[in-house]
């Protein structure tokens, strides 16, 4: 039976023209990225509620299914059956375009993330530029949503959110310049390979200020606590998506969490050596070059989870920043810090100084 299926499959597959084969194969790979990502988003919302619950001494959702594990599915179903309200003053076309503009780039950015050595959808040389472009489009989603809603709260939220996002995008861009200088490439796979040699060669160490700036900017870029004045439920109720309901709201929600996971994955790729093992070339408990030193997908996932956990931890720990404090941090602290460190890096690289970039390493 199986053999028969296999032969039939191979015959059918062989008859297809190469273009169709290519498209089907690419679509399969894309689904292999997007479906786990969607699952991760769903369970990230669950993890958020559980983790913050325990940090605040309560239990979080624990009623739907075992330990509340079906909660995200119940939430999705509920949102699916809610009315999508189109406000009478809204610009309908833009109103419905905005959530799509938020979600599509948040997903498409994953095309260039290396999950393992060479395991990425598109091995392109301008990957970092592409990522910056994709994360920038998210700003359009926010500002179009706020404008199209024609509601004061949405408008104020969109103004705040977009000014904050573009400010932190600068700090993020400068931090990435440091990564490019250290790696000498814009290809993410090459950037990871440039960090091989164990955890002391990861860029987090020589680029420590940029690493910190990058991750904090990432938190601000995704409008997460403690930088969530864009939502600020106590002042402008929910910010730019106040008029959205049902599935249209769910798309913003998905985009926000997909972006958080994206920032975590990028921080792991740029600064913590992506799929590389921290114990490469270092003996641990006498097991040296064993399983622990093996690079692989599991290290990438583990590092991404660490950053995702920090996102939740930050939210449970810090009170919300005031808007002027946010702008001061972005413009007056992060940009000068990154500029100085780019200068330091340039000296280290050109002058062959230091343990990392000396001797053409």
């Amino acid at each position, binding site marked *: 039976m199986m053999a028969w299926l296999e032969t039939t499959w191979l015959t059918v597959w062989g008859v297809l023209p190469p273009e169709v084969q290519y498209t089907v194969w690419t679509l399969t790979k894309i689904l292999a990225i*997007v479906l786990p990502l969607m699952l991760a988003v769903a369970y990230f919302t669950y993890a958020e509620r559980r983790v913050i619950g325990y940090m605040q001494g309560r239990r979080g959702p624990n009623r739907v299914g075992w330990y509340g594990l079906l909660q995200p599915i119940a939430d999705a179903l509920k949102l699916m059956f809610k009315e999508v309200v189109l406000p009478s003053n809204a610009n309908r076309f833009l109103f419905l375009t905005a959530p799509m503009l938020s979600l599509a780039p948040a997903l498409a950015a994953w*095309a260039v993330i290396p999950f393992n050595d060479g395991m990425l959808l*598109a091995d392109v040389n301008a990957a970092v530029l592409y990522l910056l472009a994709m994360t920038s489009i998210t700003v359009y989603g926010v500002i179009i949503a706020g404008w199209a809603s024609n509601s004061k709260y949405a408008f104020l939220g969109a103004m705040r959110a977009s000014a904050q996002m573009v400010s932190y995008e600068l700090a993020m861009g400068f931090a990435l310049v440091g990564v490019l200088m250290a790696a000498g490439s814009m290809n993410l796979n090459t950037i990871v390979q440039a960090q091989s040699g164990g955890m002391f060669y990861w860029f987090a160490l020589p680029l420590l200020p940029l690493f910190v700036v990058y991750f904090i900017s990432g938190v601000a870029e995704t409008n997460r606590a403690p930088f969530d004045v864009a939502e600020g439920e106590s002042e402008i109720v929910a910010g730019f998506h106040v008029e959205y309901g049902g599935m249209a709201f769910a798309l913003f929600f998905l985009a926000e969490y997909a972006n958080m996971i994206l920032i975590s994955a990028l921080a792991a790729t740029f600064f913590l050596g992506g799929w590389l093992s921290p114990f490469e070339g270092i003996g641990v408990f006498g097991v040296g070059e064993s399983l622990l030193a093996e690079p692989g997908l599991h290290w990438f996932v583990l590092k991404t989870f660490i950053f995702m956990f920090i996102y939740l931890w930050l939210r449970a720990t810090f009170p919300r920043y005031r808007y002027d404090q946010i702008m001061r941090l972005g413009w007056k602290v992060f940009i000068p810090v990154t500029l100085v460190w780019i200068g330091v890096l340039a000296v280290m690289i050109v002058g062959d100084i230091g343990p990392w970039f000396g001797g053409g390493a």
Partner: protein
Amino acid sequence: MLENYLPILIFLVLGMLFAVVPLGLGFILGPRKPDSEKLSPYECGFEAFEDARMKFDVRYYLVAILFIIFDLEIAFLFPWAVVLEEIGLFGALAMLVFLGLLVVGFIYEWKKGALEWE
């Protein structure tokens, strides 16, 4: 080289689909019972007494302009950063001059109070 970008294009289209299909499902599966109160803009229970497309603080505009300048600067830094090891001292000094000019502008806007919020 350009064919490497084709999967990205396909991914973008599929990403759009991943947004359009749930939205369409939401329209099909959800109820549709509009009434004038539900469709009015949310304003804490008040009647909306003016259009939301109102005047806004000029500083948002200023931030946008400053963003363009600095984002362009980053766009210039990217190719420089990638080839820094090859172009060596001369390249580094050239970029130092460029960055120096921008830093002067940055200090000027800082002192002028363009970065102040309240």
